[in-house]
């Protein structure tokens, strides 16, 4: 099982440093969810882990080998990433988009093969996009489009999959569907999954491992029970909350406390 880890990672854009000395080992074969406020550096961390951004200091390693010692295709066969806001070219069909996921599996000598067709079919099937394969991406709803992108990442068939907010644009049932799908993928193929999520309760329910980020650092990490606490929510999001066990899963569940809309006993 491949191990992805970052040590003393420092990275940013231009002269703005975003990540400040961050240590992180992705638990192999597990599902990790990263949570944190907007602009705290979650996407920046994923981009460093996938070598899309060169660290200013520190290093990311895959199986003990520095990331920049891998060839581009070789790395892309081991590690996939779905960016937060991917760009679809005009007029591309779902099948075409998903087929792009097979790019790292083709070389100068190994062209498109029946196995590539099967991988595309598996990805379409798993994401429920089989019936929409011929559609233009432009002609899909936001949720269908998101699933098409996930299908592309699945077709890559990597051991590690990083997903930046895979559930944005999805209604609650499709959010649950995508997360269930990721769990299936994790269980059946042992795929290591790291995803950025904004919904703390879904993160706690679906992730084996929870990471809370604050200002470019990891402020807490561990099991959902250990990480999702009232103190963490207050520190990371500056929000008062009530954390109770989720009756359906037994995992912690966070109820935000605002200034309005609550019973008087709770608001006090």
């Amino acid at each position: 099982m491949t191990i992805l880890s970052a040590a003393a990672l420092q990275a940013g854009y231009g002269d703005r440093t975003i990540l400040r000395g961050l240590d992180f080992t992705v638990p192999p074969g597990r599902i990790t969810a990263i949570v944190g406020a907007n602009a705290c550096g979650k996407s920046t961390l994923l981009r460093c882990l996938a070598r899309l951004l060169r660290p200013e200091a520190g290093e990311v390693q895959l199986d003990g080998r520095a990331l920049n010692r891998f060839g581009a295709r070789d790395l892309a066969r081991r590690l996939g990433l779905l960016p937060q806001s991917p760009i679809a070219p005009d007029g591309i069909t779902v099948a075409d988009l998903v087929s792009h996921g097979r790019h790292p599996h083709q070389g100068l000598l190994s062209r498109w093969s029946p196995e590539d067709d099967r991988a595309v079919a598996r990805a379409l099937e798993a994401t429920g996009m089989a019936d929409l394969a011929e559609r233009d991406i432009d002609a899909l709803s936001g949720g269908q489009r998101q699933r098409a992108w996930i299908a592309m990442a699945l077709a890559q068939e990597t051991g590690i999959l990083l997903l930046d907010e895979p559930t944005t644009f999805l209604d609650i049932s499709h959010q649950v569907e995508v997360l269930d799908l990721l769990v299936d993928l994790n269980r059946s193929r042992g795929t290591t999954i790291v995803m950025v999520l904004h919904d703390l309760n879904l993160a706690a329910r679906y992730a084996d491992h929870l990471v809370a980020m604050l200002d470019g650092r990891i402020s807490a990490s561990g099991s959902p029970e250990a990480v999702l606490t009232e103190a963490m929510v207050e520190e990371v999001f500056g929000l008062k909350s009530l954390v109770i066990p989720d009756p359906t899963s037994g995992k912690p569940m966070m109820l935000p406390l605002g200034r309005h809309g609550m019973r008087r006993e709770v608001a006090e």
Partner: protein
Amino acid sequence: MHAAPDSLATRVAVLRRRRARGRTRAAGGMLLLLLAGLALTLSLGQSFTPPGDVLRVLAGVEVPGASFTVGALRLPRAVLSILAGMSFGLGGVVFQTMFRNPLASPDIIGISAGASAAAVFAIVLLGWSGTTVSVLAVAAGLGVAAAIYLLSWRNGVAGARLILVGIGIAAMLESVIAYVLLRAPAWSLQDALRWLTGSVNGATLEQALPVLLSLALFGGLLLALRGSAELMRLGDDTAAALGVPLARDRALIVLAAVGLIAVATAVTGPIAFVAFLSGPIALRITGPGRAPLVPAALTGALLVLVADYAGQHLLPGRYPVGIVTGALGAPYLIYLIIRTNRTGGRP
């Protein structure tokens, strides 16, 4: 995860082959059209040469009259038109694809003007000729590309900024060309026009040779890198995550595209808007979905061939090819700029 039924894999394969066949058919149709255009320009000019005579001249047989009109005048002109058109079309579509914007074409953002200015400078003021001019033009094209890139760099390059900087540089370089031409009193208007708008007047097969070599080298490189160019349309992050070595491939693609444009420009001058128009026209014909590299090359060839024919024989008076393509491209450019203005920089 459950295994997908094989029938779905079969359907995926069928869909893929159908699209590939569609693209091949479109490219084949354009190739036929190009051959028809070639046949027309070779046989019908100021006078008509029967197809049999044309074929005999092509086979190397000496035919009185036809050997001169076809072999020495029409053939070199058509060959240069086709090769230059392919270079402009391919170089243009690659830029448009990579920057995801039809305005990011080398003839709009000053790369053609850079090659052209260097060529004029070398020919008029330094008295150079031949390959050295081509080499200087390529170097100047690359220099302009690098300058635009650096000037529009701010935490990465945004398409809209690159285009604005490029249009400004193009305007500056065009005034350099005009200035150099003013300093060359012995030059005829025909020659001056070549460097302002592009022309294939007085073409020879020797002139076409460097364009052919550049097409073989740079065009071959671009076709080898077409997969990377295709994935760059998905955005830098997605392309890199799919295993495209971005920095390397982008540098090679820019080098090859600039090389194509610059070598062709050094021979024919900057034939207006061919690089800019070929990609969008090819996209209309082949349908969207994939970057139309080969179709854009064929479109470019057809554009130059037909526009030159029109400028010679169909319009009242004789015009260099660049005047005709300029008249075709200008309205489309205005349309795109107005639309860009409305969408706030998005293509």
